[in-house]
């Protein structure tokens, strides 16, 4: 098992005819063979990925014709909010939006809209989902991961790869890796994923990688204390980031004491999370945490 996506998932790619969209759709198709179509308004009836998948004008049509339940979005920022809502309106269950740079105001609208649907949004501005060996919905390099029993939740892209790489090096595979995105408004938060990983019988431990800014890690820490019995290993990037400075991710800005790495790490420790100071210790700490639990 895994969370969110597996080998049964049927993926459509919105923006499949763009350069980013076609490249990554191709990678996802090669990884697990479950990309079933694409959507580009005005290009319905054509094919993409060297004729391997059909292109539709709308998400509704794509869903009807292919039975897709997952959508991967590579639409430019100005049109991405609309693309997310179109996917939700078509009844797509899991929507993964990779697009970086969507105006916050657009996402406020999307967030409110999604509350009225049963769709789940991952991202935006995220690397997407990877259930090793089963399904890749996003831009994570599939070859670095390995099937296994560790759930990974991360705000960051390449730092997720680093964590996955360390896990593989200590002999631990992953059940599902989720990049939730670093924007101020994202569809799925750490708490949502903790709940899913806790319920997943094939996940033994959870790696949670956060950043300075926002309060999501603190909410997650309190949730873990109350509801999560599996070991959680945490890291917060940005211990050296100066207050008030934006560090790349729109969300990675410290505006109050509570949002600093130090404050977050302290609360996470108090809530029973195995917090590592060094990003190089993520893999080995998961091993230790699991060892302790087995013993």
């Amino acid at each position: 098992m895994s969370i969110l996506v597996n080998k049964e998932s049927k993926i459509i790619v919105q923006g499949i005819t763009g350069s980013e969209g076609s490249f990554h759709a191709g990678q996802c198709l090669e990884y697990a063979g479950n990309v079933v179509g694409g959507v580009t308004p005005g290009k319905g009836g054509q094919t993409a990925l060297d004729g391997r998948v059909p292109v539709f004008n709308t998400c509704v049509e794509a869903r009807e014709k292919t039975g897709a339940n997952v959508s991967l979005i590579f639409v430019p920022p100005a049109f991405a909010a609309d693309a997310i809502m179109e996917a939700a309106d078509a009844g797509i269950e899991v929507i993964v939006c990779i697009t970086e740079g969507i105006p916050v105001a657009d996402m406020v609208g999307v967030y409110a809209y999604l509350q009225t649907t049963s769709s789940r949004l991952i991202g935006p501005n995220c690397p997407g989902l990877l259930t090793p060996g089963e399904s890749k919905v996003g831009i994570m390099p599939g070859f670095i991961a390995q099937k296994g029993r560790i759930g990974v939740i991360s705000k960051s892209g390449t730092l997720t790869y680093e964590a996955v790489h360390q896990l593989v090096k200590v002999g631990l595979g992953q059940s599902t890796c989720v990049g939730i995105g670093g924007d101020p408004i994202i569809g799925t938060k750490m708490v949502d994923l903790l709940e899913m990983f806790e319920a997943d019988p094939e996940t033994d431990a959870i790696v949670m990688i956060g950043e300075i800014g926002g309060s999501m890690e603190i909410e997650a820490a309190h949730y873990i204390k109350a509801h999560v019995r599996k070991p959680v290993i945490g890291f917060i990037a940005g211990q050296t980031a100066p207050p008030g400075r934006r560090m790349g991710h729109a969300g990675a800005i410290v505006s109050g004491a509570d949002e600093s790495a130090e404050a977050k790490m302290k609360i996470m420790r108090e809530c029973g999370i195995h917090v590592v100071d060094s990003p190089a210790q993520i893999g080995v700490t998961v091993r230790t945490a699991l060892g302790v639990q087995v013993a």
Partner: protein
Amino acid sequence: MKIHEYQAKEILKKYGVPIQDGVVIESKSEGKEAVQRVADQFNTSQFVIKAQIHAGGRGKGGGVKFCSDADKAIENIDKILGMQLITHQTTPEGQPVNKVMVAQAIDIAKEYYVAITLDRAVGKNVIMASTEGGVEIEEVAAHSPEKIIKVWVDGTVLHAYQARQLAFGLGFEGELFKQAVKLLTNLYRCYIETDASIAEINPLVVTEQGNLLALDGKFNFDDNAMYRHPEIKEMRDLNEEDPTEVEAGKFNLNYVKLEGNVGCMVNGAGLAMATMDIIKLQGGQPANFLDVGGGANVETVKNGFRIILSDPNVKAVLINIFGGIVRCDRVANGIIQAVSELGLSVPVVVRLEGTNAEIARELLSSSGVDIISAGSLEDAAEKVVSAATR
């Protein structure tokens, strides 16, 4: 993106929010005429000279002066214009004052605070208002949070009842109540229509004459939305930004200068911060944050190198790339080219992992460039810190 007070006030005025008005000048020679114009236009004989810099704390730093007559106003223009204004939000050297606002002096009866921003936890905009205006709101939030009223807004319109809730909460009555409801409604419309990320009026004052007035205005805007606001984009003042950061931005590099001596170049914001963290844990101090993004190629690597090395404090550089979409062999070619073109003034530690990392390592070792190769993240941090302290 940030703007100056006078620009914020222009925007507020356009949205029907009453402001303390004035005239903005950039040279001392305009001082006398500006004071006369403010005197005539606003029928006043007293003035406030306000330094226009982005950083807060201008008053405490000596950048805002009340002047009881025109001569004192001209005197203060001479003093403030061109000064290095040091506040708790500027660098220790301070920020040069290139513009001042000559404003009408206002007789204040009471000060309030109002601001709008995004509450990330609930995904909605929140209006915060307080009777404790004119002071640092962080202090109020820390010591008497009950004095801050909050209203969360669904969507793009502030409902009338929500504006009333805030105005009643601030204790307004009669004419002032009506003014407050109108002001709050207009301010919210302004926040939405300009894609602001913060719209703050501190202080919002009630004048001795019994009117509401914005004495100051502060806006931050969502950079991602500026494509639809060319008129706001034009308000950007590059003098207020670090020149190296502006330069980096031209090449789509995300660079933030820090105080240490270990330069770093990383792909991805999270890994870049983590790399800074591990440098610190190994006993070093990062000189910068630099995210080369998802499109790292020969050009970005070269420009990144140039920007890092323009900081004279840098004693060693760590390049840490985890290739996903980014192919390490391309990065390696960038490093080889950058080193051959720019020369190597400091030791460079390179750690490449992920897509095509093997090919990249071979490229680097066969190129003969004098770099220090590293394996794990920890190894890389250790090597660069020891190189920097050597």
